[in-house]
């Protein structure tokens, strides 16, 4: 095992991780920063984000408006102080990114263009064609190469956080190419490891989005907050779950059922005209749109395909020029993966798991309850998304909170005392033994079998609409699957060098623990709010009993313990969450 020393270790090289590393390097060029990622940073899932990043710039827009849209979009489960902090910093971060070279799409006069996005009242989504995440990630990655203080460890897989005396002391990781263990001793750790969408069968996520960082923190006693809130993106390709951006709808695309009918008007999102129009019809929030799909499915009004039921996303009326100019990636994707020319035919779409609103509990400074441990991005729950995330708030989140976490981690590293810690070495050696032992397991099941059962359980039990019986079944299934993993998973590959079967088995255990937290949190929330919808009598919002966050705490081999904590409300008192025509009436009252 190699033993190396750094001041700050950032785990995860996506948008949040790169931004955190850059922020730490800028706060102090003498800092020793390790950026540890299980993949080379430009492969991170940030790269797949398409639509854009929100920031207030128009003169007819205001921070208050962005705040209001976000808080109502989150069905009032947001920590409003965090939302205030967030909206005030978005424009600065977007501008900073532009200075680093990000090719935001422009208006004819050379200023940055902004477009409508679901749930946002005013156009405030900055976009780089329809591959905003790609450009943001590559800009950040290339910019990070300027900072000698950032030392990259590409394809190093983190397996444990090392904690002593209530504070973070280091990270244990496997160098994927050699299978050798590395102990990173450090004062601060920033987790930027992304979400856990791969717990579900139908998802838009990359194969790497397995909840690693969430599980790492979870195992060390850090609570996971609001895990029951999982976002289904309403428009993904059936089967693969490949994302079709909300930006399409921002440009005016419509959703129709098998009768060619714009069904969203039946679900409180109408009237139809004028179109496009913010916070109405296809520009309603994602949870409402995904739920509408589910209802259409129950009514038999979806289109049946070999890959499951779909509805049609129709772009044809936008015209070839606009489609090719504003949505080139979508055109490519529709052609390549479903053989559809978006100019001539509608694209078949259905909801798929896309984002994990919940995550590692942090305060607005990205500090977790564990001293020296910070978290930012999708793996964290800083409180800005509440029960449902608005599109384009996530890319902004990476930048605002990535920077906050990086600066915080740097400051903590300065203040933290240097200590020698042989206990940490011993603890690490125990883990090395345990994980190496996986390579020698005889018998056991293939991880693919366990993984498939987990995904099916989650899809059936913790889906768009939930019932007590299905949630309980999911909880039991997951406990059973964890036990089967503990009994030992069979590995064909027993070597050390680049053994992705071994790493996949370790990942599976991470994902199962996070999935369990999701299922138990959902069971405990006996109301319907945002993306968490129930059909078993708890089908409306209950602000009296459930205007609070869910906390899941690691229960070892047993299930997680569920607890709650209050929501921070500053100035937006819970109202009816309405969109469409009713929405504008509600705004005015």
């Amino acid at each position, binding site marked *: 095992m190699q*033993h*190396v020393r750094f001041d700050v270790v950032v785990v995860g090289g996506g948008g949040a991780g790169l931004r955190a590393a850059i922020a730490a390097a800028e706060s102090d060029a003498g800092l020793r920063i390790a950026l540890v990622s299980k993949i080379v940073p430009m492969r991170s899932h940030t790269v797949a984000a398409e639509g854009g990043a929100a920031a207030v710039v128009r003169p007819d827009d205001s921070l208050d408006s962005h705040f209001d849209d976000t808080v109502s979009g989150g069905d009032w489960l947001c920590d409003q102080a965090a939302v205030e902090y967030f909206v005030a910093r978005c424009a600065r971060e977007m501008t900073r990114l532009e200075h680093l070279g990000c090719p935001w799409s422009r208006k004819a006069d050379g200023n940055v263009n902004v477009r409508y996005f679901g749930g946002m009242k005013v156009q405030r989504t900055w976009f780089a064609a329809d591959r905003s995440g790609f450009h943001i990630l590559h800009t950040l990655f290339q910019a990070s190469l300027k900072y000698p203080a950032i030392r990259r*460890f590409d394809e190093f897989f983190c397996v444990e956080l090392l904690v002593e005396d209530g504070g973070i002391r280091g990270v244990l990781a496997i160098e994927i190419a050699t299978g050798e263990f590395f102990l990173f001793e450090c004062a601060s750790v920033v987790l930027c490891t992304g979400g856990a969408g791969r717990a579900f069968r139908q998802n838009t996520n990359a194969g790497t989005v397995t909840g690693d960082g969430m599980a790492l923190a979870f195992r060390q006693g850090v609570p996971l907050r609001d895990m029951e809130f999982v976002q289904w993106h309403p428009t993904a390709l059936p089967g693969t779950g490949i994302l079709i951006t909300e930006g399409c709808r921002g440009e005016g695309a419509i959703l129709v059922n098998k009768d060619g009918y714009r069904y969203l008007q039946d679900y409180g999102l109408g009237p139809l005209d004028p179109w496009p129009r913010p916070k109405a019809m296809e520009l309603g929030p994602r949870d409402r749109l995904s739920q509408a799909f589910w209802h259409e499915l129950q009514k038999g009004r979806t289109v049946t395909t070999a890959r499951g039921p779909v509805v049609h996303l129709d772009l044809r009326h936008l015209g070839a020029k606009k489609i090719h100019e504003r949505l080139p990636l979508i055109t490519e994707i529709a052609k390549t993966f479903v053989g559809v020319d978006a100019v001539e035919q509608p694209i078949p779409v259905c909801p798929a798991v896309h984002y994990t609103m919940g995550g590692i509990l942090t305060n607005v400074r990205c500090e977790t309850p564990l001293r020296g441990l910070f978290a930012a991005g999708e793996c964290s729950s800083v409180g800005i998304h509440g029960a449902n995330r608005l599109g384009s708030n996530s890319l902004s989140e990476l930048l605002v909170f990535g920077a906050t976490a990086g600066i915080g981690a740097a400051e903590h590293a300065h203040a933290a005392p240097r200590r020698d810690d042989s206990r940490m070495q011993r603890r690490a050696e125990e883990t090395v033994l345990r994980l190496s032992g996986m390579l020698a397991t005889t018998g056991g099941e293939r991880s693919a079998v366990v993984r498939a059962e987990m995904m099916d359980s989650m899809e059936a039990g913790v889906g768009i609409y939930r019932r007590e019986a299905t949630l309980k079944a999911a909880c039991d299934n997951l406990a059973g699957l964890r036990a089967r993993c503990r009994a030992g998973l069979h590995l064909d590959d027993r070597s050390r060098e680049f053994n992705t079967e071994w790493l996949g088995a370790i990942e599976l255990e991470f994902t199962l623990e996070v999935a369990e937290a999701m299922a138990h949190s959902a069971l405990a929330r006996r109301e319907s709010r945002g993306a968490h919808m129930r059909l078993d009598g708890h089908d409306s919002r209950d602000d009296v009993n459930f205007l609070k966050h869910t906390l899941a705490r690691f229960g070892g081999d047993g299930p997680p313990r569920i607890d709650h904590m209050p929501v921070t409300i500053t100035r937006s008192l819970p109202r009816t969450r309405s969109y469409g025509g009713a929405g504008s009436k509600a705004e005015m009252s």
Partner: protein
Amino acid sequence: MKADPVKAGAGVKTYVRPMGSWWLRNPFYRWYMLRELSCAFITAYALILLRGLMSLTEGREAFDAWRGSLGSPWAVGFHVIALLMVTYHAWTWFKVMPKTLPFVSIAGRRLSDRTIIALGLAAACAASILVFLAVFLNAPQAPP
């Protein structure tokens, strides 16, 4: 405190595949090598023309001898192949020409590579026709 030197990636015995006869492995490469080979034929043709030019300075007989040598079956055979090679070379030359040019915009619209290639080939054809006509319309009568 300096960071400890990190010996990452040491000890993995990567395998480097030899290039070998790489140009045979892919049709694209074979056509590329033919393009490169065509230069040899063009060079040979240029040297023959150069010989002809030099023979002009050596007097009528030398020039006639050179011209005569061009009539042998080998020479004709070579010239046929050389013509094919030059044509292929010109074709591939125009096909890659756009890659050497910065973007060209006319009235706000970018000139596509296909347009540039088409214009280039058209110009080459036109020039060839003009030269052909100039030579054969003005050809002196063959000596008796």
